[in-house]
């Protein structure tokens, strides 16, 4: 038994914001009440801390199988735990691609053997994510995938997207699309704009994303399926999502911490730690994303944690692979850029990490008796500095090395066990 005392419980599902103790028994929450006494229970003093349902990351890359030198399920989930995440959804662009039940099972076995947090695989939409034939989606569902995506790439054609959405609709799986029109983005390495022109770098126009989002929205209308926009980065895309929701379509989206924090203007000196896809956008886009996070047009925050080894990233900007890590800085960035600046409430922020992603996967996330004992404890006040060298991830490709934060994760509890504590 684990008794979490003196914390402030913030539970979006029940709209609770109160000083409450939480008693965990095995992998369930036994009781949530003020002043609980539980003789014999291990006590975790949560004074000054928020006690929230366990955070979920809907989008990350664990690189295993096939690219263990960048990350493994073990190291990635350890980093996730340090970020306060109790569950992570890993994208299928591994080697081999997770397009069959056997690869899915392999991932879950590795997770059972050494993961610090829950690993929920996302299966490929097409075989090899090549965009030609459908992957073994039903078989993967039995094996345990929670959603379908060809992330790394967009779903190759409108026709394929329609087939996938029809199929997944019947299976009850959301379709997550990395929205990108490849003909517009070809060769591009950063957002097209004054900065790309000045730096002589080929740009990706914002409409490369929004055109694909518009495509997805209309296919969602056609099929009635659930279309989720991965790492949405620009205001035109957000406008499409907002309009879709207003018409009652099952369209959802996520935004990464780096997209609500940084802009293309931050890319100075060709630093590849600022190169990712979709690229950092304009200030107007960033501000629109923050407004969307506040008003509910954006359903959740997802990290798109994309580790790369130094040798890969330490090259000319053009040649560097896209991606930055993100587990360990996500919460601190959300607190700093969204809550401390009064753009949205603490409760709304917790939603974006809990009920938001949970709703997309059709599961519950709550701090109440009988619920799963997955909890995230964090502070909103303590000062700390993030150092890439101390990260639990194998990779160091983050632009936030040396960043000073106020507030951050303090303890992560999965199935009633403390998997990480500061």
């Amino acid at each position, binding site marked *: 038994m684990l008794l979490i005392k003196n914390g402030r419980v913030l539970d979006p599902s029940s709209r609770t914001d109160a000083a409450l103790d939480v008693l965990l028994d095995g992998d369930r929450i036994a009781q949530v009440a003020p002043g609980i006494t539980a003789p014999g229970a291990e006590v975790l003093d949560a004074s000054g801390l928020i006690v929230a349902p366990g955070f979920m990351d809907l989008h990350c890359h664990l690189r295993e199988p096939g690219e263990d030198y960048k990350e493994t399920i073990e190291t990635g989930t350890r980093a996730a735990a340090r970020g306060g995440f109790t569950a992570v959804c890993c994208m299928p662009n591994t080697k081999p691609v997770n397009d069959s039940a056997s690869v899915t099972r392999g991932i879950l076995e590795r997770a059972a053997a050494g993961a610090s947090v829950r690993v929920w695989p996302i299966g490929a939409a097409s075989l090899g994510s090549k965009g030609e034939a459908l992957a073994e989606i039903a078989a993967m569902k039995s094996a345990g995938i929670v959603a379908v995506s060809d992330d790394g790439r967009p779903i190759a054609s409108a026709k394929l997207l329609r087939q996938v959405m029809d199929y997944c609709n019947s299976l009850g799986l959301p379709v997550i699309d990395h929205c990108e029109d490849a003909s517009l983005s070809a060769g591009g390495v950063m957002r097209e704009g004054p900065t790309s022109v000045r*730096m*002589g770098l080929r740009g990706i126009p914002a409409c490369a994303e929004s055109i694909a989002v518009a495509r997805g929205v209309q296919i969602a209308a056609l099929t009635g399926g659930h279309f989720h926009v991965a790492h949405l980065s620009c205001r035109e895309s957000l406008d499409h999502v907002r309009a879709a929701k207003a018409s009652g379509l099952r369209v959802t989206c996520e935004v990464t911490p780096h997209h609500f924090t940084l802009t293309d203007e931050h890319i100075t000196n060709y630093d590849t730690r600022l190169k990712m896809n979709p690229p950092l956008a304009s200030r107007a886009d960033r501000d629109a994303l923050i407004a969307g996070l506040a008003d509910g047009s954006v359903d959740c925050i997802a990290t798109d944690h994309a580790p790369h080894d130094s040798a890969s990233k330490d*090259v*000319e*900007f*053009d040649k560097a692979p896209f991606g930055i890590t993100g587990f360990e800085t996500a919460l601190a960035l959300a607190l700093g850029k969204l809550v401390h600046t009064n753009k949205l409430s603490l409760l709304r922020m917790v939603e974006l990490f809990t009920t938001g992603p949970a709703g997309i996967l059709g599961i519950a996330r709550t701090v109440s008796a009988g619920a799963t004992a997955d909890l995230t404890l964090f502070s909103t006040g303590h000062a700390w500095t993030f150092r890439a060298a101390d990260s639990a991830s194998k990779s160091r490709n983050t632009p936030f090395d040396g960043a000073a934060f106020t507030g951050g994760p303090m303890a992560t509890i999965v199935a009633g066990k403390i998997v990480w504590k500061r």
Partner: protein
Amino acid sequence: MSCRFHHLLGIEPLTREEISFILEQSRPFQEIQRHPLKKLATLRGKTVALAFFESSTRTRISFGTAASRLGADSMNLQAESSSLRKGESLIDTVKTLDAMKPDCIVMRHTSSGSPHFVQQHLQIPVINAGDGTHEHPTQALLDALTILDRKGRLDHLNVTIVGDILHSRVARSNIQLLGKFGARFTLCGPAMWLPRELETLAPLGSSIRRVSNIEDAVRDADIVMVLRVQQERLHEPALPLEEYILLYQLTPERLRLAPSDAIVMHPGPMIRGLEIDPAVADCPQSCVLEQVTNGLAVRMALLFLLIGGPHDESKEALHAAD
């Protein structure tokens, strides 16, 4: 004023004063080109590494000659070289060169920002001889020296640049340099190579306007810079050459719309009959050959400034009592 910079990665970070200083230091080297004996011993014993990862004949020969006329030796890496074909990374290639202890490295590469990247890994000065579509600082400097000789000044000139501006590092460097002297730029070319964002490149005190019609663009120009049509750099479907010639070739008729004392410049190599009419290339208003000669002077000046002094900048100056 002494040379406070250790590298030459671009024009953008330089001040007016630094640019003027480099141009002024280029004058003695212009003069040397007129001597019967052009070989000096000034940089004897020093080695200049020429790392040209992108094909170039003119710039490489220019830097090589500059080094050799100053008495320096050069190490030559060319794009066709086998180690690059074998997949060696940029940083390994550069570190291999560095292990042979050159005094500086002159590099040209297809990736914008690659000299910035290389410079982080080396102690020796890095001179950018062209990085992707970003900058070509020595070109802008030799263009400025040519303009200074022909026009007597750099301030507040009307500069028209014609061609594929979006992909031109020559255009960017020239905009940075002449912009610092208050130039008024008219950029002219096919619309897909002339995006609106180019107008944000203008340094403070200068202005940029985009014009799609070459006749309008050359009116009032003090300088008409004609860019090469870069067939090797196109990701996009190429514009048919006949279209380009029809709309943008600098012909004698079009040049006549400019003031009679306007000068015509071209970074080379020219394709006579494509972007420039042969009659214009050879007319008295054309400066293309002076640009080449000045290129040698500017590059000699830069090598002298960057590696003429002591290796170790912490050495104290000794008073020369002669």
